[in-house]
């Protein structure tokens, strides 16, 4: 692909040769995730989470398609179709439903690790700006899909979550309320909203899959980044994706699926909210309306605006909440440091961990019932979030003196003594000992 030493596809079987001459699909796969894609040899386990996100997207699509075969998108039938038909009568319906419920959570867990990996190692910097931005588009689509999926069982949190989230639109003056009514097809979530949420919940995962293809395509132009942030310079800096990274991704995927299976089979409702086992009731508001855990940090930012300053507090909250994601699109231009990897940026590194703690605090505040100190803590944490990205990051990148970088990827993973043991150019790209016979 991008490197001159990338191995070209050579069909071995006549059938594959026949196919390759007519439709070079095997060639495409070989170049994308096979032996024809050279990958930096020093990737750590944080580089496994993109593949894992793809695995969870697949799990969601497969379980979701089967669940849709048994689901009724009606306000009278939705709750019972999920909680009686699917959970009790459909063969292994409980497994499909729990796998889908927890699959959404795990999709977000691995995606968050993937995003924070990108933040730490500067994966958003040139020449991978578009990879980063396409990733953010996937993330936004995931949030929309997850929100609409949570509405489908038509429990109390489904209903009131839909009420709150569609209520964001009414924060905008003049056009807000008519837009909300138009989007919902009514004044409150009802049959019209449920049917269109179901339709979109079925559509968007395929849109995500499409953007994932663009994300991977854009990634394969410069090739994967690596923990040093140093560019690939020569053949010995890389290993072919297959078998090296397929083996690494493979065993780690089995391990993460083990964790996922343990949650799905033994604590399936741990990540959910009990109120969603109560059928939706427009006349009874739950004591604490909370979204799913993966929205908690944003919910905390939304709720942190408590005073009307020129604009109403609610509008500030909505603007800040959307702004908190949109600002990530500007990251390649906010952080101008030429050094990609946070490992060689002593000041950046400290602020990065502060950001991680900050987001965890926001998540906690967003999920817990409000009281005076949680409100204050949430306001402080929200303020830091914006200051971190929009003020601290540009300043740090302007004034920080980075640590010296390794001269190459291979020199960073191989100790000096060993590197000297082999004359330059003698090392084989595929590994293996140089020496054969004496």
């Amino acid at each position, binding site marked *: 692909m991008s490197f001159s030493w990338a191995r070209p596809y050579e069909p071995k079987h006549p059938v594959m040769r026949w196919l390759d001459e007519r439709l070079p699909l095997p060639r495409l796969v070989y170049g994308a995730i096979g032996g024809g894609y050279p990958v930096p040899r020093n990737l750590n386990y944080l580089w496994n989470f993109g593949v894992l996100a793809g695995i969870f997207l697949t799990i969601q699509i497969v379980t979701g398609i089967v669940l849709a075969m048994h689901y009724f998108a009606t306000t009278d039938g939705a709750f019972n179709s999920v909680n009686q038909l699917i959970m009790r009568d459909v063969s292994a319906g409980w497994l499909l439903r729990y796998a889908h419920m927890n699959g959404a959570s795990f999709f977000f867990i691995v995606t968050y690790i993937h995003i924070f990996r990108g933040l730490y190692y500067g994966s958003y910097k040139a020449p991978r700006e578009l990879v980063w931005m396409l990733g953010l588009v996937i993330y936004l689509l995931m949030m929309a899909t997850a929100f609409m999926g949570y509405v489908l069982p038509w429990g109390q949190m489904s209903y009131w979550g839909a009420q709150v989230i569609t209520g964001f639109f009414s924060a905008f003056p003049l056009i807000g309320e008519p837009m909300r009514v138009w989007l919902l097809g009514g004044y409150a979530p009802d049959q019209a909203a449920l049917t269109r949420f179901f339709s979109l919940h079925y559509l968007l995962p395929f849109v995500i899959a499409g953007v994932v293809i663009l994300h991977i395509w854009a990634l394969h132009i410069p090739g994967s980044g690596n923990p040093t942030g140093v560019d690939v310079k020569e053949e010995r800096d890389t290993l072919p994706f297959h078998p090296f990274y397929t083996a690494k991704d493979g065993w780690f995927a089995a*391990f993460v699926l083990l964790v996922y299976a343990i949650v799905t089979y033994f604590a399936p409702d741990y990540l959910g909210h009990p109120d969603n*086992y109560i059928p939706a009731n427009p006349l009874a508001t739950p004591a604490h309306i909370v979204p799913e855990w993966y929205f908690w940090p944003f919910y905390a930012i939304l709720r942190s605006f408590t*005073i009307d300053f020129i604009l109403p507090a609610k509008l500030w909250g909505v603007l800040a909440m959307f702004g908190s994601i949109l600002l990530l699109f500007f990251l390649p231009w906010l952080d101008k440091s030429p050094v990609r990897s946070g490992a060689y940026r002593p000041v950046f590194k400290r602020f990065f961990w502060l950001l991680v703690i900050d987001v965890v605090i926001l998540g906690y505040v967003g999920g817990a019932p409000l009281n005076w100190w949680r409100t204050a803590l949430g306001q402080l944490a929200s303020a*830091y979030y*914006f200051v971190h990205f929009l003020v601290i990051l540009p300043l740090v990148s302007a004034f920080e003196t980075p640590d010296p970088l390794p001269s190459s990827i291979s020199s960073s993973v191989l100790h000096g003594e060993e590197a000297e043991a082999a004359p330059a150019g003698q090392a084989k790209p595929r590994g293996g000992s140089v*020496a054969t016979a004496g």
Partner: protein
Amino acid sequence: MRFILGFIGSVFAAILLFSMISNLATYVKNPPAPLAAEKFHKEPKELRLKSDGPFGKFDKAQLQRGFQVYSEVCSACHSLKLVSFRELKGLGYNDAEIKKIASDWKTQVPSINPDTGEPATRKALASDNIPAPFANEVAARAANNNALPPDLSLITKSREGGAAYIYSLLTGWANPDTYRNEHGEKLPAEAKPGPNLHFNPYFANLNIAMPPPLTSEGQVTYADGTKPTVDQMAKDVSAFLVWTAEPNLENRHAAGLSVAIFLLFASILGYLAYRQIWHDAKRVVRVTGALDPKNQAKSKSAKAKQGVVG
């Protein structure tokens, strides 16, 4: 552009910090008094059931006793809409027993008269869901001082604390005039139950419309000879309601164990394969075998010892 973004960020941060200071100031000026509900609300008591934990299985004798409590006591007001009679097989009843339970059920199933087409009722079949005690919400409220008895099918999943909460609630009613919390405080007048309400510290706002349903030992007579104390009946019906909410629990636990073992082996084998594949790649530039300078030195000294020239 960075200046504009920095400005926007500062505006957000300034508003947030200002809100924080004004909130804290309000709190310092008029600290909110703790609500009675916070001071008197109790967390659920501990309840251990055989279905707990990753390898839990139902105690079928207990489920049958719990079903008996439901059908003789709770079902006067509470429906079990999502549960069908045929599912009672999971409690250990056979087909004939289930047919009998269904046809003897005190409420019949709405139907039509086959000759006139007029609304009628018929005896329940094994395939029917358990009929609700009231025809609709209005009827339920009319019979219960305008309170709506919730459906119990998913009650242990829809309440924080699950079965332990149900058990605590069922044994938690107390006299509001003599009740004292763990600090010895008496219930303030404003927290005392209003008309048709009953004090129960396990209920979120302390006062619940449901009067105590399990009031005396021997309210039901257990066929298996278990002593029907209030505590025992509450435990049994809580265990039964775990089953109604999650009838596939045993399947889930068994399947989960097999899947976890499979994935554990897959991870271990996959890891070993990964180590094998990467074995040489991790040492790519280290010369091994006969060309390794260490080995060359060794063989040289060995040859020298043996007097071989080479």
